[in-house]
């Protein structure tokens, strides 16, 4: 896993307390409304997201930038590629 710091996201999705598969469905909807090159920040407390989100990015062709660990959640960063 790639760790990053001080990202400046264009949009944030707070998915803390939300269960699988919302950690994939919501970013999918959200990123459709964003522009190429913009960064989406996903907040989640679901461990499975650490595998799923990078895999999902690869499948959809978006860039997975990395993650930062917070006290109460993970922050995952995705750059819209197309």
């Amino acid at each position, binding site marked *: 896993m790639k760790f990053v710091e001080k990202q400046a996201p264009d949009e944030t999705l707070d998915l803390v*307390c939300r*269960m699988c598969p919302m950690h994939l469905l*919501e970013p999918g909807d959200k990123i459709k409304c964003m522009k190429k090159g913009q960064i989406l920040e996903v907040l989640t407390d679901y461990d499975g997201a650490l595998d799923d989100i990078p895999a999902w990015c690869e499948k959809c062709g978006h860039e997975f930038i990395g993650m930062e660990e917070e006290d109460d959640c993970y922050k995952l960063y995705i750059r819209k590629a197309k």
Partner: protein
Amino acid sequence: MQIVYMDHAASTPVRREVLEEMLPFFQERFGNPSAIYDIGIDIKGVIEDQREKVANLIGAEAKEIVFTSSGAEANNLAVKGAVLANRKKGNHIIVSTIEHHSVLNAARFFERMMDYEVTFLPVNNYGLVDPQRLAELVREETVLVSIMHGNNEIGTIEPISGLAAICRDKGVLFHTDAVATVGNIPVNVKDLNVDMLSLTGPPLGAPKGIGALYFRSNTRLMPLIHGGIQEMGRRGGTENVPGIVGLGKAAELTLNELPEKTKHVKNLKDRLVSGIMDRIEEITYTGHPENRLPGHASFCIAAIEGEALLLMLNQAGIYANTGSACASKALKISPVLVAIGVPAEIAQGSIVFTLDRDNTAPEVDYILEKLPAVVERLRSFSPLWKKNI
């Protein structure tokens, strides 16, 4: 015999337009909204349309609405959901002393089971919360403040926007139980400045068994019902499609008709209140005289008891309610009336009339004719009434 129903806070009839809108969704359009074939996807779209209508009524966005089974569930989701989602922030909850049991007992649940501290914010004689007092009580560990918008027992409307602003400044989530107000007065979540707001179907002419919670975007909520992706994962379980359609239709009708309804019920209520105050001695009009629900009239009548009063009115075809809880079987005296400082023996004689669009002036006059005689008769039995002492 004439029948006069003035207990609309307890239940209302479903509006005909609402029922007609709902009916197809019991049989012809029965598909599961989560299904991927046409008759499912179609229903999913119907649900999203209703979400939009409910959001419109309260000035919210559709994605900020989650449908629930009732106002009580919406209150539970707000209190438990927000407190559980923010458990790392702290362990302090503030609620007013006159909240509905679904808020009070949800807060007490954390107090009893999980080592939380709950502060019960007192109210004055009109039932109003003091903003200054709230500001003093909010602290670092406070995770949630929940104060109701309108009280169904005394009719008082709380100054929510000011209370919510105090919490916003301090970074504390604010929830309001608007079950008594949405459908009876204009309610706008932006004006009220709240993070969460509960509403229910019946005051709008929708059926029982459907309610909703508004939550500001990105408010963290732990689901109470874990399940699938229904309600965006915030509430599992196949959706109550007919109920949701009913709530959507009722919200749409309410948006258009609310000013007219409010004026109508307020006129009738004013006539009822002044008529009762003129005809019955030793009676107290409870709650705030102006800042109150337009169709809500509540009184405490000295030297008689509420349940006896209701039953005798029932014999005259008049259906009302009482806060004196002999009728509710739980407690002798209403905690709300105690909270506003009504002496216990006076609180026994509580009676509440809640009016709606279908009530009429002749119905009010019928009550004005019957109620004084019933009161006089019960007082003639009472050892507390001055003429018997």
